[in-house]
C-alpha cells in the first residue's frame, strides 16, 4: 500500500523552490534544540529534504518512502550513502519492530493519509516504533484555498491545528507541543517505559 498523490502535489514536491523553502525556513525551526538521538526514521521522506538535514547532522537515517512517484528520485539522491537506508513503507503499517528508533520525523505528509482514522493509526504506528522517551517531530500543512487547488483528486484530509495536540495525546504521546504558524509544528514523546 502507498499514498496517492495528485499531479499538482507531485509537481510541488519535485520543485526546487518548495524543497529550498522547506530546507531554509522550516526544518531548522523544526529541529531547533531537539536531541534526536542516534537512529532516526524519516517517515514518508518524499523529495528528501529532511533526510538531507539529518545526514548533514551526521545521523543514521532510515528514509521510509510511501510515495512511489518519488522513490526513484530519493534512491538516486542518496545512492552510495551508507548512512541512509531507503525503505518502502506504508505509514499505517510500518515494517519496523517495536521501539527501534530514537526519533521520528514526519514532515508535511499526514494530510495524504486519506482518513482521520488512518491518520490516527499512522500516529499510533510512529509511537510503536519509537523507543521509550523517543521523539516525534513533524510539520503539518494547513487547509485553505491553495491546498484545495493542489488536491485535485480530493484524496487529502487536512489536519485541524486546533485539535491536533489532543489527537497526539489520544495516540499515546506525552509532552505534546503544537505551534501554529503557516505550517504547524508538533513535537511529542513516547512515554518512558516506567510511566
Amino acid at each position, binding site marked *: 500500500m502507498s499514498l496517492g498523490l495528485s499531479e499538482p502535489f507531485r509537481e510541488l514536491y519535485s520543485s526546487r523552490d518548495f524543497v529550498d*523553502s522547506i530546507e531554509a525556513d522550516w526544518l531548522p525551526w523544526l529541529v531547533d534544540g531537539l536531541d534526536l538521538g542516534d537512529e532516526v526514521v524519516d517517515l514518508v521522506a518524499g523529495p528528501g529534504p529532511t533526510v538531507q538535514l539529518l545526514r548533514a547532522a551526521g545521523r543514521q537515517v532510515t528514509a521510509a518512502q510511501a510515495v512511489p512517484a518519488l522513490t526513484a528520485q530519493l534512491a538516486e539522491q542518496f545512492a552510495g550513502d551508507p548512512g541512509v537506508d531507503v525503505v518502502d513503507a506504508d505509514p499505517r503499517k510500518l515494517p519496523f519492530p517495536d521501539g527501534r528508533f530514537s526519533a521520528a520525523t514526519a514532515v508535511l505528509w499526514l494530510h495524504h493519509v486519506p482518513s482521520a482514522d488512518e491518520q490516527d493509526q499512522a500516529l499510533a504506528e510512529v509511537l510503536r516504533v519509537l523507543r521509550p522517551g523517543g521523539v516525534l517531530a513533524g510539520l503539518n500543512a*494547513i487547509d485553505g484555498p491553495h491546498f484545495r487547488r493542489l488536491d485535485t483528486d480530493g484524496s487529502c484530509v487536512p489536519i*485541524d491545528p*486546533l485539535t491536533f495536540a489532543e489527537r497526539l495525546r489520544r495516540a499515546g504521546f506525552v509532552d505534546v507541543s503544537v505551534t501554529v504558524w503557516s505550517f504547524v509544528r508538533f513535537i511529542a514523546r513516547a512515554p518512558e517505559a516506567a510511566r
Partner: protein
Amino acid sequence: MNREHLELCSSAEWADRLRTELLPWVFEAMALPDDLLEIGPGPGAATAVLRERVRRLTAVESDPDLAARLEERFADDPSVTVQHADATDLPFADGGFDAAASFTMLHHVPSAELQDRLFAEVARVLRPGGVFFGTDSLDGPGFQRLHAGDVCVPIDPLTLDERLRRAGFAHVDLAVLSLGVRFVARVAA
C-alpha cells in the same frame, strides 16, 4: 508598518484576496449586522467590501495619516464614519454596537497586553449578545520577512479562545485555514 508592507495592504492583489477568499470565509461563519464597528481598517481594503453589506459602518483607525486618507476615500458614502481613535481606549459608550470586526490587524497592536485591552474595549462597546469577528494572519518565515522592522505581535490561534473569554466574551468560535485564524466571539446576551 514598513513601506513594502503598507504597499501590500494597499494593493489591488490584497483587496482581491480579501474580497474573494478571506471575507467570504468570514461571511460563511456569520450574518452581517446592520451596524458595524471596524477596528483598524488601515488603507481600507475590507472597509470597501463591508460598507456594501451593512447599513452603518464606523471605522476606527489609530494612525492619523491613514485615518485622514480613509476619510477622503469614503467621503461620498454617508454610511461610513471614519474616526481617528485608539482601539485600546475607544471613545464610545458601553453597549452601543451590534457588532465589531477586525481583519489582519491585531498583530499590529504592539503587545499582548494591549491586544487584550483592545478585546476588552470591544466587548465593552458591544450590546448584550453582540459579536466581535474577524481574522488575523498566521506567523511564519514569510510573515516575519514581510514585517521586518514593523511592530508585529502575531496572534497564537491556540491561546486566542482563552484570551477572548478573559476579555469578557462568553462564546468563542475559532477556525484555522492557511488564510489565517478566524474568530467569532459573542458577549453574553
